[in-house]
Every structure is written in structure tokens, then in C-alpha cells.
């Protein structure tokens, strides 16, 4: 069994105040080498409980391998990992974990209800529990009208939905979603977002592996950027997007001196005719800038902060080459 025994975490079982109560996932220098190829170079992560955590990175950055190590599907080459207070891969801890694998598939002669009952039984759920839970989940993922079909008749999107339902059947404390929106249409993606929100409000931790950045931007509390099997940066999403903002201003009668004076708040001030662009550390300074411009006699027509999308931040951090 791919268990990663973390020698230094002996206090986990002893002290309820230990960080394991605070973190759903903790890893230190987790590594995986396949043959001679390094898939994960040294993953050090802390995922607070109750958060939606986005794990971002280009294809081949080691996202799926990392998830598999946390679930015990892949044995780490080195390092430590603790999931829900137990060494990664611990069978008992998996009782509280839900997992949607990338490209979910299963025996296609099952009906969606049979599939959910089977997975529920693997979690040790009783027939009585499943009697209520299965129809509720089919309803949640919008498959009730298709409950008599076999999975062989399912589209890719429908398979993804039933995969999502099996990941939620045990009302897990921690949910791993590996590319949950792949194969889904906009309605399906909306559904995934809503489910993630619901799970979060229930108190669950969601570990979301994705390269669909717009999805992550809407759902995540915190994101980690992964490249070449290494975490480049972990940030709270609102800090990440707040940060430095580009502002474009359209104003007339703006003298060279006034333009120069903008330097006290802004960097990279560039003027071209009546258009000025500049960078500010935070949008908090914008009212002051407007007051200053008006006071210096300029006619201000437009002040537009251009917040960087997560995609732009992603490209900044990971690099345009996408790690290839």
C-alpha cells in the first residue's frame, strides 16, 4: 500500500491542537520519480480545512500524480504527506475522502443508481443510508431522468456527472476533483461550481485540480501554481488578483508636471495623447489619484482599473512556455 509514513508528525495522533486539525492536507518535500523522469519535484503544501484549494499548472506539471500520492494510489519516492491527520493513503482516512478521477469511467453495464450503490457500499454505507442518498445525488447531478439507462449510453458529460456523484456519496470531509469540468458543457460546469460551493458551506475541503482558470477564479479560496513538479507560488486568490493593478486614464489638459507627480502612487506611467496608463500597487489609491488629477487642472473622462485575470497571473507566474 502506498502509505507515506511521516516520521516527524508523531504529535498528530497525540495532540488535538496540532496543525492537522487545521489542515486537511499537509505535505513536505513530496517527490515522485517514474523511472528516470521526475514527475513531482518537491511538493510542499498546506491546505486549510474548509477551503476550496485550486491546484493549477500546465499539462504534465505533476498535478494528477500529486493527487494520486495523496490518495495512496501512487507511492511517493520521498517526502511526507498527511491527509486528514493520517499518512497519505491510509485506508481508514479514505472513509472521509471523495475522489473524482480524471476521465471517470466504470463498468458500463451498470445503471447510474447501481454504480452509486456499489461505491456507497465500498464506503461501508448501509442499504438504508443508500436508499435516501442515491436518489438525492442523482437529482443533484441532474441524472434522475436517465436513471434507467446504462452507463454505456451515457455521454462524456453524463459520465463526469455520475463520477462527481460517486465522489460525494459518503459526504466526505475532503474531496479531490481532478479536472471536474472536463467534458462538461457550460450548464455542467455551472453545476460543478454550485456543488463545490455547497460542499464548502457544508464544511468540506475541496482540492480542485484544473487548468480551466476561469473556473478556479470563481470557486477557489486559495491557489497553488505548479510547474515541472514544483510549487512556484501559493496564494490566497483575492490577494493574487488584488495585487498590482494596471489603470488606464483618459484625461485632457494633463501637464507634464502633473504626469510626473503621478509617480508618488504609480509605476510605469506612460502617456500617449490623452491616454495614460500606469500601474498601482492596489486599487485603494485610485480616489487619491483622481483627486490629484482634478486638483492639478486636468479634465478626467475615464479611470479604468484593469485587474489581471487569473489567466494573466498564471502566465506571469508559470511562464508563457507553459512548462513545456
Amino acid at each position, binding site marked *: 500500500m502506498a502509505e507515506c509514513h511521516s516520521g516527524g508528525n508523531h504529535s498528530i495522533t497525540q495532540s488535538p491542537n496540532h496543525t492537522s486539525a487545521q489542515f486537511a492536507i499537509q505535505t513536505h518535500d513530496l517527490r515522485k520519480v517514474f523511472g528516470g523522469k521526475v514527475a513531482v519535484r518537491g511538493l510542499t503544501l498546506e491546505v486549510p480545512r474548509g477551503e476550496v484549494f485550486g491546484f493549477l499548472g500546465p499539462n504534465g506539471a505533476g498535478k494528477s500524480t500529486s493527487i494520486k500520492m495523496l490518495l495512496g494510489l501512487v507511492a511517493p519516492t520521498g517526502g511526507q504527506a498527511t491527509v486528514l491527520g493520517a499518512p497519505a493513503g491510509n485506508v*481508514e482516512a*479514505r472513509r472521509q*475522502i471523495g475522489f473524482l478521477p480524471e476521465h471517470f*469511467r466504470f*463498468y458500463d*453495464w451498470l445503471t447510474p443508481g447501481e454504480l452509486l450503490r456499489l*461505491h456507497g457500499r465500498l464506503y461501508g454505507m448501509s442499504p438504508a443510508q443508500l436508499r435516501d442518498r442515491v436518489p438525492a445525488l442523482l437529482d443533484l447531478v441532474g441524472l434522475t431522468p436517465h436513471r434507467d439507462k446504462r452507463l454505456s449510453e451515457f455521454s462524456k458529460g453524463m459520465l463526469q456527472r455520475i463520477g462527481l456523484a460517486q465522489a460525494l456519496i459518503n459526504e466526505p470531509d475532503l474531496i479531490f476533483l481532478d479536472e471536474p469540468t472536463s467534458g462538461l458543457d457550460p450548464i455542467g460546469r455551472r453545476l460543478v461550481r454550485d456543488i463545490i460551493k455547497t460542499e464548502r458551506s457544508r464544511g468540506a475541503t475541496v482540492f480542485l485540480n484544473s487548468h480551466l482558470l476561469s473556473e478556479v477564479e470563481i470557486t477557489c479560496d486559495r491557489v497553488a501554481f505548479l510547474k515541472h513538479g514544483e510549487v512556484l507560488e501559493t496564494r490566497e486568490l483575492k490577494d493574487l488578483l488584488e495585487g498590482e493593478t494596471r489603470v488606464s486614464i483618459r484625461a485632457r489638459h494633463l501637464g507634464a508636471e502633473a504626469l510626473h507627480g503621478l509617480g508618488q502612487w504609480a509605476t510605469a506611467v506612460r502617456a500617449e495623447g490623452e491616454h495614460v496608463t500606469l500601474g498601482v500597487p492596489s486599487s485603494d489609491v485610485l480616489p487619491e489619484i483622481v483627486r490629484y488629477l482634478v486638483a492639478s487642472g486636468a479634465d478626467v473622462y475615464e479611470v479604468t482599473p484593469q485587474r489581471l485575470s487569473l489567466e494573466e497571473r498564471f502566465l506571469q507566474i508559470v511562464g508563457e512556455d507553459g512548462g513545456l
Partner: protein
Amino acid sequence: MGAWIMAGVTFREAARKRILWMALAAGAAFIALFSTGLYFQLKDQTHPANPLITREAVNSVLMVGLYAVDALAIVMTVLTSVDTLSGEIASGTIHAVAAKPISRWQVLIGKWLGFVGMVTLYVALMVGGITLVTYALSAHFISGVTPPHLLRGTFLIWLECVLLLSLTFLFGTSFSALTNGVMALGLHGLAFIGGWTEEIGAVVHSQRAVNVGIVASLIIPSETLWRRAVFEMQSPLMGVLRFGPFSNASVPSGAMVAYAAIYLAVALGLAIRRFGRRDL
């Protein structure tokens, strides 16, 4: 518990394989052909022979029939189970299961049990079918012929299939379906040649040829179980005369059967170990 859930779903999955239904159809066709042949053999005896000799002949024909059943069962066992591990690892089907709160050994044993169930059903149906047809036809013309120690013989045929199943599981933890199938059936081919070498060696009193056969049986003791099954089910007279399609000149010992059982357990144990450690 997890193992039983896996066994149930694997049995249903195995029962849906086209190969199984083809093997059943082939088996049914074979039994039909066999019984037609036996019917004419018994009916067209121009000189009503000594019923005792006829009974011996029927038993010999039944042995040939069982030999075909044994071969069919082996091929069916290997071909249905050959991609259950490697295929599900490659397709990702196994991921959703292996991430559940059940141990890897339970996943593997569960799948193995599911296939054991299917093999048991197949062997019971085929051996039962052919002995029943033989009994009914011989009862019609002379008196009902049943092989001695039928249950023991059936058990040995079943054990042979389960041994190859366990070997297929072991190979399936490391190799692709195709490689796995070639390896399992190739090894059984080795056992087959070894078995005949031993038999012929015994007939011509060549101890060295017998030893070659014994070494082959040690490498893969599948055919040895069939030869023991023949010994159990052949009529005692044929056994003494050492005459017939399966001479049984060199009968595998009880120790060899025990060796095969241990071999099976070791193969399954290694499969569990390898599956428990491999990355999915």
C-alpha cells in the same frame, strides 16, 4: 466486506464478457457433437460386444471429451481474466475503487474470487454436461457409465483453471493483457509438452525423459493436475492396462497436487504483494 463487493461486481463483469459466452457456445456445440458421435458409436455396434468392454470404451471416449473440456476451460479462464488488472489500470477504472476505504489486497482478492466463481460455474456446467450425456446414452444402450471419482477429477480440473487464473492475475499486475495471455498460455504449453514427455518417457522406460517432464511440472504444474484427474476418472481396468488415449504411465503423485496448490497460493500471494505496491 470490500472483497465480497468486488467479487460480486467482477463476477457480473466477467459474466458479461463475450469470450465467456463464446466459450459456452463452443462448449455446447462440442457436447452436442460429442453426444452425436457417442450415440452412433453405441448404436452401430454390429456385434453386440461384451458390455464390460463397451463400458471401457465409453469411459475412454469420455476421457477424450473431458480433455477437450479441460482445454476449453483453460483457454476461457485465461482469455477472460487476462485484462482485468492491466486493462482496468490502463483505463482508469480501478482508480475510483482503489481510492475507496478498502485495501488493495481486498480489491485483488475480490476480483480473483469473482473470476473463481465464473470458472467454477463453467467447469461445473461443462464437466456436468458431458458426464450427464455420457451417462444417459450409455444407460440407453447398455448401462449407465459414470467415471470413478468424478468429484475428485472435477476438482482437479477446476484447480488447474484456478492455478492458471492466479498466474494470469500475477502477470496482470505487471504486464499488458497481450503479454500476459502469451505468457500464461505459453507456460501451459510448456506443461503440456512436459506432461507428454513424461508419459512417453515412462512407456519407453527412459527415466531421463520422465525427469524432463517432472521439471516441466515443477515449473508450471497445470497439466500435471489434468493427468491426475485422468487417473482419478479413468476406469480402473484402463489404468491397470495402461492403455488408451491417456496412458497414465506416470501418474502425478499426491505430493505433486499439493505442490500445485502451494504454487497457486504463492502466485496469488505474489500478485497481492505486487498489486499492493504498484503505482496505479
